């Protein structure tokens, strides 16, 4: 029993239709909006400059023609990373790549029409360190890509980041929705995204010190109080923005 798609309708009669039949400029006067002769213009107006032609043109809603990407086609596309491609127990494809290749591989995944990974469902970071105070962080950036049809999903794990100052190229030109996700990764893990349009904290206060989701950051209340009262004391993890305001 496949689910049917129904299109919601608008009333064709009554006061609703009568109001809609009044010209826009007249309606604008009616509700006291004289300063704006046309209440709504149409189309492109809603597109801010940042999400311009490049993104819009290369994001098809209908899936690209061809077979959905499978393990074999990905292996053929990235022979140098074929050894790090496998399927996890949730049935999802998982590709592990070093940070040096990340920009090229991600760009290819986005722009290769046959793959159609035009949606970034999620971007997050995992710290693989054990949590000992002296141990440096071992961060791994995880991109969760899906086809527009919701069919195939691919998880890209970027490993081998610099433990002291993790940095990677931004994904915002490829997926505009990455903007806040990268801000969050920067906020909580201290990962810098090169070329990000406005990399600043998003969830924590702007003068917060440290990267709380790293394993080396202890959230015991005593530690927190100490950090708050002495903001210049360096914490176990390197703060992303140097000292504090």
């Amino acid at each position, binding site marked *: *029993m496949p689910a049917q798609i129904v299109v919601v309708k608008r009333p064709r009669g*009554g006061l609703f239709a009568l109001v809609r039949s009044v010209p826009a400029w007249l309606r604008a006067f009616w509700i006291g909006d004289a300063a704006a002769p046309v209440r709504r213009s149409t189309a492109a107006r809603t597109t801010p400059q940042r999400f311009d032609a490049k993104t819009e043109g290369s994001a098809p809603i209908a899936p690209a023609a061809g077979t959905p990407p499978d393990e074999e086609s990905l292996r053929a596309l990235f022979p140098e990373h074929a050894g790090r491609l496998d399927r996890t127990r949730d049935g999802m494809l998982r590709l592990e790549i070093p940070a040096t290749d990340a920009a090229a591989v991600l760009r290819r995944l986005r722009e290769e029409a046959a793959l159609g990974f035009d949606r970034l469902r999620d971007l997050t970071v995992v710290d693989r360190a054990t949590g000992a105070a002296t141990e440096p962080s071992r961060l791994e950036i995880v991109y969760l890509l899906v086809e527009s049809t919701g069919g195939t999903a691919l998880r890209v794990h970027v490993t081998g980041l610099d433990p002291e100052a993790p940095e990677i190229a931004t994904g915002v030109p490829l997926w*505009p929705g990455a903007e806040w996700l990268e801000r969050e990764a920067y906020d909580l893990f201290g990962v810098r995204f090169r070329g990000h349009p406005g990399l600043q904290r998003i969830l924590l206060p702007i003068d917060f010190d440290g990267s709380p989701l790293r394993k080396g950051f202890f959230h015991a209340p005593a530690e927190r109080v100490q950090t708050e009262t002495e903001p210049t004391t360096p914490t176990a993890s390197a703060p992303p923005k140097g000292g504090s305001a």
Partner: protein
Amino acid sequence: MSASSDTLPSKTLSDRLGFRATVVELGHTHPTVRRVMGGVGNTLSFLVTLDDDRIEALEVEIGAGHRGFEKEVESRPWHEALPYVARLGYASGPIAQIGYCLALERLAGLAVPVRATWLRTLVCELARITDHLARIAALATAIGAGAAERAVQQGELVAMKLLAAAIGGSPLGEWALPGGVACDLRADFADHWTRARSALEGTLSRVDRLLLAHPMAALRLVDVAPLSAELCMALGVTGPCLRAAGVALDLRRDAPQLAYAELEFDVPIGTRGDDYDRLAVVVEEIRQSLRLGDQCLRRLAELGAGSKGEGASLRGPVAAANLAVPAGEVALSIESSTGELGFFLVSDGGVLPRRIRCRAPSFFHAQALPAALVRAHLDDLLPTAAAFHLVSGECDR
């Protein structure tokens, strides 16, 4: 008064008065923001740059309610994340808990009894109805449709009581558990459902009359804050707001979890992606949820409650305290009332999680809000925020 400069045509009133960029902060203590957004947690604030009453730029600020749950749960056993997960939403709390349990069961390889799966499906739909009604009530409040607001609030109360009858208490309690559910439906639930269903149908017909077919909706919702399908996809918008833009993406249909593969329902989509379409899609989804609820109850009656056999069991043999999860990773998304709610769980093989990540739809919707509202009127900010249903718990986590 120099005639030459005065006779030059000015674009707007602000230009003439010299207030080119007025920046207003509509914070969470602002009375109208409180009234509209109160139902979803109300920790967001909006920094609006105005030209007259047109929005030139909009910044949505989140994080005031950040409780750092992803850090907190890393030092606790897996099941202790459930109270935090429930608080991602209020009425939608059970959906988030069910999503988390599904991901954890996949990771730990736990089996779930058939009856528990059907109960979870039913509860997902009841929670969806309640949360959707809360969204409509907020939207009605925002455009000043008082009669519709009160009608929807009555319906919301009915739906909330129905949800409580199904899960035995508050939506923030622990009903969904790893491996099953905590309790069965109340004995008289079928009667309760019949009464509530007709009450909810009455609510929906009043919504049709007082909101969808009302001239006020034609003035305040049609063509307001449209977001194109391309932009929705690029910005990660999901759920009813994406479907309102004409994209038929629904995880219940495309990647069915629970019992959705065996159920019959329609996926409503809009055409223009404006506030009116968002509202119309949500109203239609409530109708579909009622349809799904009927089917779930029929199936649950067939399975039989309290009798012996597979159908009677509600929870597999799990030691919830200190559940040892084998090393591995799982990413799983379900269709919540707000959109695609995803969990990404990483285990080292111990009793403590390595990472629990929640992909919350409202976070993406808050990000997309400025794109929808550029050059719109200030009046349209709150109706649009209500139509997007920006739940604070999901934005801030």
